[in-house]
């Protein structure tokens, strides 16, 4: 067993892991990236469409191009060692040191002995079982991401006649992709009365291809013995599928784009506390989890809709990791942050009143002309007008000592973030 002593272990070499590793290395620390695939870049490698980097690079890139920029940066930093084709199989918290066990065909078992760990494993797709679609269990049901992988990397087309469940971004992207390889996408079926993907994707991936979007509909049954032969879709009326208005659509392939969930496999090894609203870890103002020295960023913390924000969050996270290692910020005062009206979650779950704090939140409503309001123990400290909000678009804002001046030692100092 090889023992590898290092300052920071970054678990995952996708967009979050690459940005975090680069930042920690720039600040002079030794970093090991553990990546289970042979190639760095994570899920970006299969996202061959464009639209990445508009915020971060102010230009439009494809997924692999976006990844390549960071792979190049990481490659130019000698303080970073990359362990690809390596999978974490165990973790141990021994106070000041974290031990991570990973295996690879070439190296066998490696034991990383690190001062801090950044969790950057991304997320996984929810599947049929998670949403409970009744019916038979034929071949031909894929999560949209798996189908994307098969088509874009392996070059195999799953089927010719497709129905997509859920209007998440990957589902929308795959509607267009399947059309491009000559398949017919008969329907995108969304349970909510509004799409769950980005507006630009509805326009570019469905409308441009005249693919019908059924809002407030569900797939009520899957048919077929060996391979999918069709689905029954039904409108939702009074919160139940109205079977008398159901109709059958013949298809050979069903793609599921019904949400993403942080992949907590490694977090669980450290018994990190999980937030049921995000399914990611609870983190303090430094993005540190309930396990001291263990940080989280990117989609393993909460599912982002744009990679640009993942990069931003991971870079900031690595800054906190470095502060932690260097022994600064230890005495930082922190208080609680709570989701307020119409907000599903706000991250991080704590704030530090003596510096700038950047928050991400996800609204629960679709509405025009709204106000984002932040209160401190019930008293408004920040407000911003927004032209439009919807659950599929993550929001962010930054507040600092100016707004948080009243957070003093004698009060609860609960910050609440609402949208109305």
């Amino acid at each position: 067993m090889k023992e590898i002593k290092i300052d920071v272990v970054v678990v995952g070499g996708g967009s979050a892991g690459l940005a975090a590793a680069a930042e920690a290395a720039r600040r002079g620390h030794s970093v090991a990236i553990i990546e289970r695939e042979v190639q760095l870049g994570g899920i970006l490698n299969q996202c061959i469409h464009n639209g990445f980097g508009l915020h971060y690079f102010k230009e439009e890139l494809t997924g692999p191009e976006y990844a390549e920029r960071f792979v190049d940066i990481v490659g130019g930093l000698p303080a970073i060692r990359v362990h690809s084709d390596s999978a974490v199989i165990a973790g141990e918290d021994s106070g000041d040191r974290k031990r991570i066990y990973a295996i690879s065909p070439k190296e066998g078992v490696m034991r990383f002995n690190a001062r801090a760990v950044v969790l950057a494993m991304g997320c996984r797709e929810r599947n049929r079982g998670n949403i409970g679609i009744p019916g038979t269990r034929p071949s031909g049901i894929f999560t949209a991401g798996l189908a994307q992988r098969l088509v874009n990397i392996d070059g195999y087309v799953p089927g010719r006649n497709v129905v997509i469940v859920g209007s998440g971004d990957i589902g929308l992207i795959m509607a267009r992709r399947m059309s491009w390889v000559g398949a017919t996408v008969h329907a995108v079926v969304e349970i909510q009365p509004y799409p769950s993907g980005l507006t630009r994707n509805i326009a570019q991936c469905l409308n441009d291809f005249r693919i019908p979007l059924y809002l407030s509909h569900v797939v009520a049954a899957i048919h077929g013995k060996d391979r999918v032969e069709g689905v029954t879709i039904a409108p939702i009326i009074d919160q139940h599928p109205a079977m008398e208005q159901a109709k059958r659509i013949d298809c050979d392939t069903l793609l599921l784009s019904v949400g993403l969930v942080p992949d907590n496999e490694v977090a669980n090894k450290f018994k990190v506390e999980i937030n049921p609203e995000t399914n990611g870890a609870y983190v303090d103002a430094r993005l540190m989890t309930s396990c001291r020295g263990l940080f989280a960023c990117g989609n393993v913390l909460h599912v982002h809709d744009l990679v640009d924000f993942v990069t931003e969050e991971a870079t900031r996270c690595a800054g906190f990791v470095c502060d932690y290692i260097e022994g600064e910020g230890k005495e930082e005062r922190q208080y609680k942050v709570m989701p307020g009206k119409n907000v599903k979650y706000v991250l991080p779950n704590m704030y530090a009143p003596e510096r700038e704090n950047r928050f991400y939140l996800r609204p629960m409503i679709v509405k025009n002309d709204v106000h984002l309001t932040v209160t401190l123990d019930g008293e408004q400290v920040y407000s911003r007008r927004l032209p439009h909000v919807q659950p599929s678009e993550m929001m962010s804002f930054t507040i600092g000592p100016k707004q948080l001046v009243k957070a003093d030692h004698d009060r609860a100092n609960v910050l609440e973030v609402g949208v109305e």
Partner: protein
Amino acid sequence: MQHYDVAVIGAGVTGAAIARRLSAYRLSVALLERECDVSFGVSKANSGIIHAGFHHGPQTLKARLEVRGNVMYDALQRELHFPFKRCGILVAAFSIEEMKTVERLYEQGVANGVIGIEMCSRARILALEPKLNPDVVGGLHAPSGGIIEPYRFVFSLVESAKKNGVELLTEFDVVEAHRDGAVYTIRSSSGSEIAADWVVNAAGLYADKVSRIFGAEDYEITPRKGEEFLMERDAKGYTSRVVFPVPTPNSKGMLVIPTVEGTTMVGPTAVEGDDKEDKATTAENFERVFYSARRLVPTVSERDIITSFAGLRPTLPGDDFYIELSKIAPSFVHVAGIQSPGLTASPAVAEYVKDLLKRAGLVLIEKPEYDPNIPELKRLRSLPMEEVDELITQDPAYGEIVCRCETVSEAEIKAAIKQGHTTLDGIKFYTRAGMGRCQGGFCTYKVLKILSRETGMSWEEITRRGGGSYITKEHIGDLPVKSLPGRVE
């Protein structure tokens, strides 16, 4: 045409156990299976419970074989290395009325010879399983009950049978048979033929059809559907023992079953139907299962579901096993109506059938070269770190994780393929790759890649479970060149 002493029809747990038992003798045995892999019929959806033997009265064949089967598992596990644990079984009662039934079950268990069975007070049952509904008033504890991976058990039985000379013929769907002198000629739907002197009908749901094909007794197998839900491995709020409700005259009820691999199942329902291929799940049963399960263990949560499935029990009127020599067709044995506790009973059923054949005139001479043991496959997830390191040095494929949810290495996938499991489901049931929380979202393409490389099959030829269950349709390079739909201005 290949001529065998015995043809066993059906490679579910019953047929596999019988074939393996017969492989200890100087006999040529064929094991015929209509699906493309063994255990793909009734056994695949089994709940995996090794029953203790208190559910059925001492007058039934079921009860006798159940109790006898139960005690055989420790020795079988040492030989065949399938996952098995005597975790114990509880029956939880919620009223004085139900306690009366529990008392009857206890007495039945004692009469059947169930080892260690005990009546439990409320305090005792809650001490055993603190997560039980606190409204429980008492119940029954049978420590000899256990859990098993049913398909892994079948795979091991078949591997052992094959090692001792049994020939497995998959995709052999028996459609025709005729007897010429003392020999049956048996034909499959694809036209291949074998000959056999003796026939054991362990065809599960289709035992009635097979019986008719051989001109034996006329009976009807009715499918009774059971839907089950599989829950997350790290989920809290589940029990460490199998928990039954108090049974009704028709059903053992819906239960909470910890699986031997650390997940939990809830179910199954019991609905009579007429379609032997109908394994569809329904929205209504979802509600029923969770309502019943939460009555036993309130912390059971829909949030933990990773998948659901349905299986069919092959039932006969009267509900007992039907294991007899045919009175009409010579040298033909019925092993029909083997539903719950068929898995538990299977090793005892095999003994019983062996004795039946012997009494009917089949000559059984022990083979000195018979070896009941098969090698144990090392599985990454159950090994200590030092051993993992050593193993990867010997075989780097152990260092390549294919299924991250269930920690399955490439070496294990290759072992499955070597054992003849060449569909996605076959590999899944052998290795657990794709059985975890992502349900194959991450590992499917990796398994496809390894399967294609190891077998020479193209990706388009690979299926989920045979027949028309293909995974991918075509390669992008083979698509016809035509104008693709562009942007509509």
